[in-house]
Every structure is written in structure tokens, then in C-alpha cells.
């Protein structure tokens, strides 16, 4: 899966949570909690949606790596493209 596809998936799932937000205008380096006003329940729903959509189970301990769009895309890209054992 390409970086572009993953970014699209991330933005679409965040848009499900914050439908009024124009994701193209969100600074990809901004903290999502402030940039689009999401709380811990929203964030858990985002992590759950990524799990269902992309099959990637993101452990709680890694949540801090996904608090920006760029961070989320980088994390998901790296873990989806890891060779499976």
C-alpha cells in the first residue's frame, strides 16, 4: 500500500470522526487532539477504524506516535510494509 493510499485512509477515517473538518487544510504536523478537537474516545475509534480497514492492530503504547497525520501515516506505512514472519 502506498504512502498516498495510507494518507487517504487516515484522512477519511479522521473525517468520519470530524466530518465538518476540511482535512486538506489540517497541518499534517499538528497535534490532532487540538487541530481537529478529538478526545480519547475519538482517538480510540480512529485506531479501531484503522484496525478494521487496514488490518493493523496498533498497541496502546504506540498511540503517541500517531497524534499527527504525518506521524500516523509514517507509523502505518512502516508497520504495514514490515515483512511478515
Amino acid at each position, binding site marked *: 500500500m502506498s504512502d498516498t493510499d495510507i494518507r487517504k485512509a487516515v484522512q477519511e477515517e479522521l473525517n468520519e470522526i470530524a*466530518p*465538518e473538518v476540511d482535512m486538506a487544510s489540517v497541518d499534517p504536523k499538528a497535534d490532532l*487532539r487540538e487541530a481537529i*478537537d478529538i478526545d*480519547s*474516545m475519538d482517538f480510540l*475509534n480512529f485506531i*479501531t477504524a484503522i484496525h478494521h480497514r487496514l488490518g493493523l*492492530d496498533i498497541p496502546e503504547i504506540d498511540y503517541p506516535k500517531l497524534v499527527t497525520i504525518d506521524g500516523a501515516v509514517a507509523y502505518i506505512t512502516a508497520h504495514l510494509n514490515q515483512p511478515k514472519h
Partner: protein
Amino acid sequence: MPSLGADMEAGTLVQWLVKPGDKVKHGDIVAVVETQKGAIEIESFQSGTLERYLVGVGTEVPVGTPLAIIRGEGEAAPAEPKPAAAPPAPPQAPTAPRKAAPPPPPPKAPPSQPPPVAPATGARVSPAARRLAEQRGIDLSTVTGTGPQGAITYEDVAHLGAAGAAPVAAAAEKKRAPSLDLNAMRVAIAAAMARSKREIPHYYLMHQVDVTPCEQWLARKNAALPPEARLLIGALAVKAVALACRRFPAFNGFYRDNRYEPSQAVHVGVAIAIRGGGLTAPALHDADTLALDDLMARMRDLIQRTRAGRIRSSEIADPTITVSSLGERGVEALYGVIYPPQVAIIGFGKVVTRPWVVDGGAIGPRAVATLTLAADHRVSDGHAGALFLAEIGKLLQEPEKL
């Protein structure tokens, strides 16, 4: 028309979800009502067969107005019911509120056009189909249902949208909870909060709690769970408050007609911020009896439905105490305003790392949260409030037992 919350005196029936002749069970969602706090799904108070409607789509009626006649199993056919245009409460109307309501004022005239979300036929519409129709601005009365008994399904609406059906509204722009009118909600909040501050002599207490055991337990538990089953600390907070209510009934109930009625059941109102502004606190029913994973799942569902504008009538009417948190917005202590006729609200603040005296007198870093209580001095005193807060703090020291 069940109670719609403090200072919410009327609602407009916008959709029937059952037809005369249909069997309904206690708790089934039978109708949708629009209020200042958005659409509310009306649940049946009893089981039986829907005899007939007493209120038509598009009619605004006061709280306490019978909406329909439901005949219980084995009951004789009722006497001729009163006409829809004059809805004073007949004493045997099964959908009348459990408690006798004061005589309602006459209903306002129906609007000239019913809201576009209401199918004129009163056909069944699945919640997902209704939501999609709202998002796309599709008039449900133009949709032909293909589901059971002509029910309109998600696919019916999705197909119409794909075929380019003309939307009723202008562009179906992305919008949060189309049924939520934030200006109207602000009016409702203003009325309830002004009444609270006018009538309820609040007192306030604050209590700091070491929640390190909660954080450590959650980290261990969640590490073994998929995302959809993970817990948040908010679930522990709600459960701890609910359990403490059992021991301290002076904080769990209603103050009405100059007297306090403690509640046997513990229905925790969860304060939920609406995107774009507004707030509501629907009930998490019987929170004291729910296992944590079940409580978390229900809280998640409650928050999603509330933000989508789909609260149920019992969730509006039933909260016996409220829990609120602004910790995630950096607030360390919040002093709530009691939602009448309740008598207490618990606040949870941000979890911060603080130097704390631990076992043996040493000082170490601990995760600390500030709990607050705003309570009704007509019902309880600060001493009882202090014990109540201490009990919640104690329960949070052993999250595995919650």
C-alpha cells in the same frame, strides 16, 4: 411523550417507526421526536400491540401527552381513544408516563410541512438508512422500502443516492449530526443551568486521588485486547462513581416537589460535548451492575449516538447523577452545575504526574487526578460529600475489582 430532560417541555413527533397492529416490546424504539437537544428515539413503556396513534407526524405536543395506545396481551380493546388533536392524558393509556403529568397545554398546530426526514406513511426506516438520508438530504417519503414490511433499508437509500435522486436540502455538505440544532441546544442548556443555579444551593468539594493503579491496570489489560475492546480510564471513573452511589444514596436521585427521592437504580449521566458546541449528559443505565467491558462498550455506543443526534428517550429522562470530565482539555478541576432534578455531579480532571507520598513515607512520581463534587445542600451536607468522594477514590485504588 416521555420526559425530555430539565426544562424541555415539548417535542415534535417526526416519525413513527411502528404501525397499528405491530407488536412492540418494552424498550422498543417506536418513534422519533425532535427537541431542542436534537432527535430523540422514543421507547415504548410496555409490551403489547400498537392499537392506534394518538399524535400525528409533524405535531408538537407537551411532555406527558399520550402518543399512542398499546394494548397489552389479553387486555380488552380499549374504549374509544381521544382524538389526536386533543391529547390530554387518558388514565389507562399505556404509553402515558409512569407518573401522572400535569394537564398539558394544548398542542401547537402542526407545521405546514412535516420535516423532510419523516416518511409520510410512517414506514419503518433503519437507523442507518435514516442517517444516510439525512447526510444526503434525501426525503424519505420518496423512498420505496424493500425490507421487511416495506422497511426502508440502508441499501434503498444508498441506491437512490447513487442514482442521483434530487436532494431535498441544498448541497449535502458534510455536517455533524444534521438533527442537532446547536442554537436550540444552547437555549435548552441555558434554561436548565439557570434553573439549577436559581434553585439548587450547590456546595463544592475537591479530592485528589492517586490513579496510578488505574493507569497500570489499564496498560496491562489493554495490551492484550484488540482496539475495539480496549478500555478508557473514563469507564473506570463511571463505574467507581456508580458503585459509590450504592453506599451513598443521598447523591443518586431526584429532588422534586420539595422532597428528595433517592433512586434504587444508578443511571449515570455521561456529559458529552457535541462537536461545534453544546453538551448533553444521557444515561448509562444501571452502570453499577455492568461489567467494565460492557460498560465501556455501552459508553462508546452512547457517545457515538449522542454526537450523531440519536439519543433515546430513557437516556434523556433517567440519569440519577452526572459524571463530567474536562481532563483531556487540560483542566485539572471542574466544578459542575447540577442538572436538575438530579442532586449531584462528579467532575474528573486531567491526570497529571505529581510528587506524592507513597508507602513508607518516600516521595515518588504518581499519576494524580482531581475529583470534584457539586452537590445539593438541600439533600446532603459536606461531611457526606467528603465521604462519597473518598469512597470513589478508594474504589479507584483497586481497578481490577470494579
